């Protein structure tokens, strides 16, 4: 695949995520999606860039803000939509909702709504993978807020102590809900992780998905070759409110101007030609998934008791 084809492929993937999220917004008022939604709008490039470098046997741990990662990793859109609709054909049979998507068949590990909680899980999975001779990599995505949790430190320490091959990806959108990073952190994420003996990397432009992919691929290959923990920080921007379909500039904690500089780099905002070219196909896919979801039955009482133990 040449560069242009790669760009188009990734652009289309990013567009799919964007349009799925916008569709969720449009449909939210119908109350058929009865699940809080933490939308990925603005952060698509990170997911697309990273997942382009991964295969099905690589495990990806992420967070409650994972629609982008679910789809970019190859999760089935129909099942995702049905899950949001709380139907039996959802990827988690309606029991997870937006915050707990899972697609184990493509290495997308079920997500948790507790900030930072998947960090140690990823370390453990990577350790297990190493002990069992598994080929896949383990990658864990987390937000900047997660680095404040004690368990982040415990996880870095352990990974470093035992040289566990796990790829930590900090998706830094500089906000934890409405709080700015400078008000929450008395440290710098990369320098701090470095001192734990964890090799760190940084991507400057979090909107350039092709570059993210190339850099990340190199990093993954390097970890496979020389197993060790690494951390990469990728800046990004969350366009919508923390949870929900709306925008919240009226809240006053940030301004639309702040977003403007991000939007100026956002291919989905800027490359309207390519959007027009790819849009219809994507919208058709989405329409199919909505129909799938609408037609999927609701779970029954007997389903309530399945899979407890």
């Amino acid at each position, binding site marked *: 695949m040449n560069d242009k084809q790669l760009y188009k492929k990734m652009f289309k993937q990013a567009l799919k995520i964007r349009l799925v999220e916008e569709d969720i917004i449009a449909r939210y008022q119908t109350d058929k999606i009865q699940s809080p939604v933490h939308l990925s709008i603005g952060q698509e490039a990170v997911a697309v860039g990273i997942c382009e470098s991964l295969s099905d046997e690589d495990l990806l741990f992420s967070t409650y803000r994972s629609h982008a990662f679910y789809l970019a990793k190859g999760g089935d859109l129909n099942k995702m939509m049905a899950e949001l609709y709380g139907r039996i054909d959802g990827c988690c049979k309606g029991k997870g909702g937006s915050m707990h998507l899972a697609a184990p068949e493509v290495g997308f590990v079920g997500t948790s709504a507790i900030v930072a909680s998947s960090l140690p899980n990823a370390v453990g999975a990577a350790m297990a993978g190493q002990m069992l001779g598994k080929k896949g990599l383990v990658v864990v995505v987390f937000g900047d807020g997660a680095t*404040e*949790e004690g368990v982040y430190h415990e996880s870095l*320490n352990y990974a*470093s102590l035992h040289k566990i091959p796990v790829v930590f990806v900090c998706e830094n959108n500089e906000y934890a809900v409405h709080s700015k990073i400078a008000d929450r952190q*008395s*440290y*710098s994420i990369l320098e701090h992780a470095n001192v734990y*003996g964890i090799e760190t990397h940084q991507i400057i432009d979090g909107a350039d998905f092709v570059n993210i992919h190339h850099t990340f691929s190199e990093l993954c290959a390097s970890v496979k070759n020389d197993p060790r923990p690494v951390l990469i920080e990728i800046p990004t921007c969350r366009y919508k409110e923390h949870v929900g379909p709306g925008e919240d500039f009226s809240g006053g904690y940030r301004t639309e101007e702040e977003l403007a500089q991000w939007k100026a780099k956002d291919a989905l905002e800027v490359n309207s030609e390519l959007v027009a070219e790819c849009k219809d196909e994507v919208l058709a896919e989405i329409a199919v998934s909505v129909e799938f979801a609408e037609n999927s039955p609701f779970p029954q009482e007997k389903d309530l008791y399945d899979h407890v133990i």
Partner: protein
Amino acid sequence: MNLSITLYKKLLLIRAAEEAIINYYHEDEMKSPMHMSMGEEAVVAGVCHALSIEDQVLGTYRSHALYISKTQDTDTFFAEMYGKSTGTANGKSGSMHLSDPDKGMMVSSAIVSSSISTAVGVALANKMKKNNRMTVVFFGDGAIDAGVFWESLNFACLERLPIIFVLEDNGIAVHTSDKKRQGYDSISKVVAQYNCHNYEESTTDVESIYQLTQAVIDKVRTTSQPAFMKLSYYRYLEHVGINEDFHDNYRCEKEYEDWRVKDPIKVQRSRLLENSIVKESELIEIESNIYQQVEQSVSKAKQAPFSSIQTLYQDVFK
């Protein structure tokens, strides 16, 4: 009184109390697990001497030295060891949970790292009340494995709190050396990532520690930034109990011997004599008084009554 003499007396009081525990433990009247302070006297006494009575300290299950340093009270100390109604907590706390808030000894907890965030809260309250009190929290190197230490340090730095984190580093958590637990090379380097003042010292000279602490307190006050002090020491005895355990081979007796040569009490005693601060005969009298104080406290404790069943039910709720 001369500083050197005062500090010597403070060191010896701790040592004498610990020796008394060792001497009397076999009588099976002090029914509490003992996490002994032998080896850490200079660190604790040195830091505490720089504090006023209003300043507050928090500790761990290994807080005999801390309690005695902050309160100078061996009566309530032994009463608590003996589980009597005259103890610091009427016998309810035992060795692991000593406290005397009126003298600034806030809490000590048996859950590793758990009093660190409490200390940050204490410091926050002091800042909000503008009462100029300093908070000092003592913990071991095991505690910095725990995430909550980092959460607490981060918060204290962000809020510019009047708190000093004192890491009493003996290089070991129960029997596990720090090399088996820590993925980073140097704790000081990690702490340096945070906006706090960072100090490291490995000495058994109580006066050095005292002077350092004075400088640290001044720095914290003038810059409104917390401080972290890594002070090394050697834990002479087993993790819990009154015996040595070198026969268990998880650490090297030679290392202990090297530290023993510079035992804090010995160092200070030598200073007093070498600098002719006291004569040998005066020193012996000072020492005799300290041991007598401890004996009297033990005696009082033995004679004190046990708590009654009413005490059992007190202080669950308000």
